[in-house]
C-alpha cells in the first residue's frame, strides 16, 4: 500500500530510466504481494472451514454407509475416508491434493467435486449475474432520482420498495411470485432452469444455459431458459436493488450538498448535467464497491431461492454437503466462493483506476 501511495504523490519530474525500473520493480512486488495475500486468505478460509466441518456433531461416515451398516462396514468406510488420521494430516493431505488439481470425491453425490462444481456454479453465476444486472439497472437510477427529488413521490416509493425488499422473507416472495406469474398468469416458466423438453437439448459449452443456447443459435431454448430465470433473477435483483438504491441515494445526497454542485448550478448547467455528469461521476467509485459486494454475496448462492425454484446451484450444494458432513464438497465450494470474492475485489480495484481521473 505504502508504495502505491508514494507513487501517487510523486508527480511531474520526468522519469529517469532508474525510476522506471524502480517503478516496475514496485509493481512486481505489489503483484506478488497480492498473490501471496490471496493464497493466504484462501488457506485461512479453508482451514477455518475444515475445522468447523470436523468439529460439527455430524458423522459423515453414517451418511456414506447408512443407518443399517454393521460396525465392520462402518470402520472400513471410516478408514477409507481417512478419518482415523489426525486432523492436521487430513488437512495437509487435502491441501496437497488440491494443489495437484484433485478436489476429491463428494460423499453426498458420489461424483468428483470438480464435476459437481462445474455443474452447479454456472447455474448460480447465471442467476447472480442477471440478478445483479437487474439490481444495478433499476437500483442505481432509482437511487439517483430519489436523491435528486428528495422527499418527492419517487423518493417515497423508493423508500417503500427498499423497505419491503429488506424485510420480506424471500421464500414467501418466491412462492407468491411463482403462484402469480407462473401459476395464475403463466407469463414465466416454472421451477427448474429449463422446461423438460429442452433438458439436455443444448450442448453445454459454458454451462450458462442462456449463453449456450445463443451459441447454438437455438432461439426457442433461449426463450425458454430466459422465462425460467427471469423470476428468480428478478427476486434476487429486487433484494440487491433495495440495497443498491439506498446506498446510491445516500452517496448522491452527500455529493449534491457539496459546493462544486452549487458552482455548477450557478454556472447555469442543466440539472441533468449537474446530476449525471458531475455528481454521479463522483459516486461511481463507492458504488462499484457496493455492487461488487452484492454480486459476491449472490455468487455464494441463495439457498432459499434455489430450493423454491429447484435451481441446482452452489448455495444448495454447499448447504446440503455441510449438513451431510461432506467436507470435500464444502471445501470445494468454499474455494469457489472465496476465489470469487477475491476476484471481485481485484476487479473493483481495477475499476477504481479506470474511474478515478486522478489515477490517470
Amino acid at each position, binding site marked *: 500500500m505504502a508504495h502505491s501511495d508514494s507513487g501517487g504523490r510523486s508527480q511531474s519530474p520526468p522519469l529517469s530510466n532508474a525510476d522506471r525500473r524502480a517503478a516496475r520493480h514496485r509493481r512486481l512486488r505489489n503483484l506478488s504481494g497480492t498473490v501471496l495475500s490471496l493464497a493466504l486468505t484462501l488457506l485461512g478460509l479453508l482451514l477455518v472451514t475444515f475445522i468447523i466441518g470436523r468439529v460439527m456433531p455430524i458423522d459423515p461416515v453414517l451418511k456414506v*454407509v447408512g443407518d443399517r451398516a454393521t460396525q465392520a462396514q462402518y470402520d472400513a468406510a471410516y478408514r477409507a475416508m481417512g478419518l482415523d488420521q489426525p486432523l492436521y494430516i487430513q488437512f495437509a493431505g487435502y491441501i496437497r491434493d488440491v494443489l495437484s488439481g484433485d478436489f476429491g470425491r463428494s460423499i453426498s453425490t458420489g461424483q468428483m467435486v470438480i464435476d459437481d462444481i462445474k455443474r452447479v456454479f454456472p447455474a448460480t453465476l447465471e442467476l447472480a449475474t442477471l440478478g445483479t444486472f437487474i439490481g444495478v439497472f433499476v437500483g442505481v*437510477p432509482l437511487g439517483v432520482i430519489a436523491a435528486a427529488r428528495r422527499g418527492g413521490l419517487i423518493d417515497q416509493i423508493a423508500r417503500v420498495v427498499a423497505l419491503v425488499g429488506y424485510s420480506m422473507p424471500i421464500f414467501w416472495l418466491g412462492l407468491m411470485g*411463482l403462484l402469480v406469474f407462473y401459476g395464475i398468469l403463466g407469463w414465466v416458466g416454472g421451477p427448474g432452469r429449463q422446461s423438460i423438453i429442452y433438458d439436455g437439448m443444448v450442448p453445454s459449452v459454458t454451462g450458462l444455459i442462456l449463453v449456450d443456447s445463443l451459441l447454438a443459435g437455438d432461439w426457442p431454448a433461449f426463450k425458454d431458459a430466459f422465462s425460467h430465470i427471469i423470476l428468480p433473477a428478478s427476486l434476487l435483483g429486487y433484494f440487491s436493488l433495495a440495497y443498491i438504491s439506498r446506498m446510491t441515494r445516500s452517496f448522491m445526497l452527500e455529493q449534491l450538498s457539496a459546493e462544486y454542485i452549487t458552482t455548477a448550478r450557478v454556472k447555469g448547467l442543466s440539472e441533468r448535467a449537474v446530476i449525471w455528469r458531475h455528481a454521479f461521476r463522483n459516486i461511481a467509485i463507492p458504488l462499484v464497491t457496493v455492487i461488487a459486494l452484492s454480486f459476491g454475496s449472490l455468487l455464494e448462492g441463495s439457498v432459499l431461492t434455489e430450493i423454491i425454484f429447484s435451481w441446482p446451484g452452489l448455495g444448495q450444494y454447499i448447504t446440503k454437503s455441510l449438513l451431510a458432513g461432506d467436507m470435500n464438497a464444502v471445501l470445494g465450494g468454499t474455494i469457489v466462493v472465496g476465489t470469487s470474492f477475491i476476484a471481485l475485489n481485484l476487479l473493483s480495484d481495477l475499476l477504481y483506476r479506470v474511474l478515478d481521473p486522478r489515477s490517470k
Partner: protein
Amino acid sequence: MKHLMTSRALLLASAIALAPAAYAETPADTLVVAAAIDDIISLDPAQSFEFSGNDVNNNTYDRLVDFDPLDLDKGFQPSLAESWEVAEDGLSITFTMREGVTFHSGNPVRAEDAAWSLQRAVKLDKTPAFILTQFGFTADNVEEKISFDGDKLTLTLDKPYAPSFVLNCLTANIASVVDKETVMSHAEGDDMGNTWLNTNEAGSGAFELAAWQPNQAVQFTAYEGYWQGAPEMKRVVVRNVAESSAQRLLLEKGDIDAARNLTPTDVDSLGDVDGLKIKDEPRGRILYMGLSQKDELLSNPAVVEAMKYLVDYQGITDSFLKGMFMTHQAFLPKGYLGALEDQPWTYDVAKAKQILTDAGIEGGTITTKVRDLREYVDVAQALQASMAEAGLTLNIEMMTGAQVLDAYRAREVPIFLGEWGPDYSDPNTNAATFAYNPDNSDEAMATGLLAWRNSYAVPEAMNEATVAATLEQDGDKRAQMYQDIQRQYQAEAPIVPLFQRIENTGLQENVQNWNSGGSVTSVIYRQVTKGE
C-alpha cells in the same frame, strides 16, 4: 426532469414482460415426475440403499424374481429366472434362467452374470450386503455357494431357510443382475466396477439410464429390446423438486405428470382440481415409539403399558398426519406376509393414569431428542400434552436427523419417535430388528437392531421364535408364526409401532397404472400409460 430514466426503464419493463411462453401438457410418450431425489449417493445396486437410488435401479435392472407392478399382492414372480426348484433338504435352490434376454449393451443375460452379480455384492460388502450374507455367504465361500452351470444357477444355503424368505430377499435391489462384461471393462483396481457403477448402469431393465445430474434430475429412455416388451413411455424424467408447493404448481400447470412429495395440505387442495387425481398407497415405513430401557422410569413395565394409551391414534391420523399415516400397531406393515391388523390400544388417559397409580408411580420427567421433521415434532408435542395429563413431564430437544441418529445408535434417546423402513420384502426384515436382540450389552454394539438401540432385552423365547420363522418351509404356518410373535410383542415390548406411512402421489388424470411400489418395493414405470 422526466427525461431522467424513461428509455432505460422502458427497456427493462419490456424485458420483464416477455411474451408469455406457451405451456402445453407433457409429450404423450414422456412421463415427467417431480420428486425430492437429493438422497441418491450411489447407483450401484451393490451399494445403493437410499429410497431414490432404489427407485432408479428398480427400473434399470431386473432381478431373478420381481414383483408384478399391476398386482403387488401376488408376491415375487419369475423374472430373469424362469423357474426354480428347492432341494429336498431345503439347503439349495436352483434357478433356470430365461432365454433370449439381453442387457442394454446387447450382451445376453447368462446364469454367469446372475451368479457374478450376487458374488460381487457379497464381496464388495457395502451396507445392503447383509440381505444376502444372512444366508451364510461370505467373501471366501461365495464362489462355491453361488454357482452356475449352463442356464442353471444354484444357491447353497447354510440352513434350510423358508423359500419365501430367500426369494423375497432376491427381489431386493442388491440382487439386481448386472452385466459382467460391461462392468468389468470399467473396473478400477479391485473395485469390481463399483466406482463406475456408482454413476452408470449396466442392467437389462425396461429403462436405460440416460442421465443423472445429482440434485437435479434423473432421465431414462425406454429399452426397446426389453424382454417383457418395450414400455409405452419412451422417456421418463424425474426432476428434483424439493418443495411441495412447487410440485403442486407444476402439476396444476400440466408441466409434470406426477408429484411425489406433496404435503397433506397440498393433497387436499389438489383433490378438487379438474384433470388431476391423487393415488394413495400404503408404504412399508412404520412410525414407532421406542422407549429406552436404560431410562429408569421407562424401564418400568407399567410406564411402558401406560405410554401405549397416551398416544391419540385417531386424533393424530385425523389431523396433522392425515393422509400421510394410518394407525398400525404391529411391526409388520400391511402388505407383508404375516402382517397383523389388530389394534389393541386406544387413546385413554384415564386408563393410563390408573395403570401408573396402581404401580405407585407419582409422575416423573423425561428429556428426549426428536428429529426436526414436522411429523415427528408434532407427534412428540401431542405426546407431551397427553403425558402431562397423566402426570409425566416430557421435555423435547429438537435436532437434525443425523444428530438424533448418532445419539440413537449410542442408545442415548429415551423416547425415540421416528420411522423404520423395511430393507426387503420379507417379514424377517422387521422381525429381525424389532424382535431380535441376542446380546443386550453395550459391548455388543448391535447398532443396526432397533431392540438393541432401545436397550430392550428381547426374551429368549421371542429371539428363538424369530429365528424359527425364517426356517419354516410352509408359507401359511410361517405367516401364523409372525402373527404370534407380533401379538406377544404388543403385549410386552417397549417399542410401540404407531402408524404406517401412506404415500400420496398427485397425478394427471390421464396417467394410468402408476405404482410407487406399495409396501414391498420401489417405484416401477414400465406399466405406466398415458391416455387421452
